[in-house]
């Protein structure tokens, strides 16, 4: 009769989430979670977060102008995304949900291409193999299995890459992440399950989602280390993820990370959060803003000056302009493309259907 041969303590999250930066920018060193970045790296984190916020705002504007059908903002979650994505190497893969603009920008994914999903120009329009950034995934939690399978593949192939998948607090309730973590634990796959606990699944608050002490406590049930960090502290999300990445790359298997953050915007532009949360709660959340905090830190270190701010503003504007140019009034493609890409070999399909559409287009002078 098998008995607990493994010490569960290594899997349980420590009592306190890893927190390195106070809101006022004060840095607390944690020997367990070193920040192995030089000054340029620290400034880069700030730059990426600020660019993310501006492009995010641009996307919201584009939606308001009727240019996007809908958009899911990542405002407030920049530190969670940028810090974690920055801890990966270029050849590592990310499997996102639908809210990871910040992670995408770290990987230099074409943001306009990404947003075509929300415009509805095409379902996805960036090349996942170019930036090692998977397709955005709308069915909740499903991408966790793709990340796990990909990591299984890398391990079989003796390729020392790591995969990371993002999902939300709500996503932890679905069966798929559960199965993904089960597989990853058994196979020791080099995958990191990065949960952005932004306190809500649309309108459903965390306490209606789970009775777990913390989300990170789920990890022990899969034999994964469960880690927590202050998700609005970009140094903490970076350092905690880096440690997990190093561990995975060394062949020691997967890690579950819960980043405590807050969704400062509506769930999507279609949502009306006034129905389920108060202004007081929002005001409180604003005091933990991840970007202000990092700026305070850089200032304390004398790494912040108007030159940096100007440069970042400039870059942010550039990306935002690029996105706007790529999206605004972007024409839809050839409707005949609907029949492409369904099958690599379409022999036997679409009998008469192509002709039907072609005839309709011709009749409407759209052919």
């Amino acid at each position, binding site marked *: 009769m098998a008995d607990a041969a493994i010490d569960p303590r290594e899997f349980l999250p420590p009592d306190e989430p890893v927190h390195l930066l106070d809101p006022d920018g004060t840095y607390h060193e944690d020997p367990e979670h070193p920040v192995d970045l030089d000054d340029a790296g620290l400034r880069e984190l700030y730059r990426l977060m600020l660019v993310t916020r501006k492009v995010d705002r641009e996307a919201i504007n584009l939606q308001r102008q009727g240019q996007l*059908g*809908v958009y899911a903002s990542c405002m407030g979650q920049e530190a969670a995304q940028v810090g974690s994505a920055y801890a990966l190497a270029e050849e590592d893969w990310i499997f996102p949900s*639908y809210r990871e603009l910040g992670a995408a920008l770290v990987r230099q994914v074409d943001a306009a291409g990404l947003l*075509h*999903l*929300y*415009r*509805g*120009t*095409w*379902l996805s329009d960036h090349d996942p193999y170019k930036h090692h950034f998977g397709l955005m995934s*709308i*069915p*909740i939690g499903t991408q966790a299995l793709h990340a796990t399978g990909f990591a299984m593949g890398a391990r079989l192939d003796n390729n020392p890459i790591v995969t990371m998948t993002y999902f939300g607090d*709500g*996503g932890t*309730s*679905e*069966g*798929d992440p559960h199965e993904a973590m089960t597989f990853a634990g058994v196979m020791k796959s080099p995958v990191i399950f990065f949960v952005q606990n932004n306190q809500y*699944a*649309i*309108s*459903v608050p965390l306490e*209606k*989602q*789970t009775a777990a002490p913390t989300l990170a406590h789920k990890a022990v049930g899969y034999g994964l280390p469960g880690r927590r960090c202050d998700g609005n502290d970009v140094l903490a999300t970076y350092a905690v993820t880096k440690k997990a990445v190093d561990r995975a790359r060394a062949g020691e298997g997967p890690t579950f990370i819960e980043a405590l953050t807050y969704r400062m915007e509506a769930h999507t532009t*279609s*949502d*009306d959060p006034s*129905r*389920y949360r108060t202004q007081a709660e929002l005001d409180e959340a604003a005091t933990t803003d991840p970007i202000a905090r990092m700026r305070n830190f850089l200032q304390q270190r004398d790494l912040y000056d108007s030159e940096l701010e100007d440069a970042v503003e400039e870059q942010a504007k550039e990306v935002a302009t690029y996105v706007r140019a790529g999206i605004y009034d972007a024409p*839809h*493609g050839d*409707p005949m*493309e*609907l*029949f492409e890409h*369904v099958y690599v070999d379409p022999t036997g*399909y*679409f009998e008469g*259907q192509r002709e*039907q*559409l072609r*005839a*309709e*287009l011709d*009749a*409407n002078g759209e052919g």
Partner: protein
Amino acid sequence: MAITMAQAINQALHDAMSEDERVLVFGEDVGRLGGVFRVTDKLQENFSEDRCFDTPLAESGIIGTAIGLAMYGFRPVPEMQFDGFTYPAFEQIVSHLAKMPNRSRGTVKLPVTIRIPYGGGIGAVEHHSESPEAYWAHTAGLKVFTPGTPEDAYSMMRAAIAMDDPVIFLEPKRRYWMKSDTELPVETEPPHKAVVRREGSDVSVFCYGPMVRTAMEAAEAAADEGWSLEVVDLRSLSPLDTPTMLASVERTGRAIVVHEAAQTLGMGAEIAARIQEQAFYSLEAPVLRATGYDTPYPPAKLEEFWLPDVDRILDMVERSLSY
């Protein structure tokens, strides 16, 4: 008074909950938010959190617990937030909800009504415009209803909840804002009956849910061409009201089926198969199909090219008449 289809369903849920305290409404965001389409608006406020509650984000969990609640004696009305998110619950629906009454020789009854907003045409992001009705209609043990008007939305929802069989209730989301001048409560034909919405003599057009209005528009346009279309709103996809379909085809001699779902093995396949089986000598032309294509649902900017519309219906009418 003008009410929308969404309001009609909301009122149906409200009235069912008032009349029978065993009726429970639950799902993702149906409580405080009132549902992403506000179809469950104020139910929690009016009936307490015990009777209208938010669940964790897990569709198999929602349907599986609905089955347990029904076994206990409740009449659950769970919501699947969108068509494309019913798939995680497929096993609970197909292996248990559809089968348990039969397995138990009728001892276990499962009066569960699963509400699913379905279909396209609203410019939504992917997985939010699916038409999964054929999956359910192929599954013995389920009833599948879909209203095409606010009146039917109210009346069929009341009937579905009152019924002891499990019902998949498909709400045509692009018609949530469709208005009708009517007083609620209203009682229309029983749900398993198809209804002739417009009489005609040349071609029978079988449609349901979101396509009822489109078919009516097509009939209007066809009249300008001198073609008389009979529009039959099927209302129930399982059971199919074959007698009403046959009676119509026997009158017109021609039939077209309209639906958003992909053509292959969509409802049109079964309807065509039945009509030719049972009204072989009445047919002057083959039963034709004006449907979505055999491709994944397209991106929003291209959906107008994919979805059947008045033109596609009229093309089929013309083709039918050419026989």
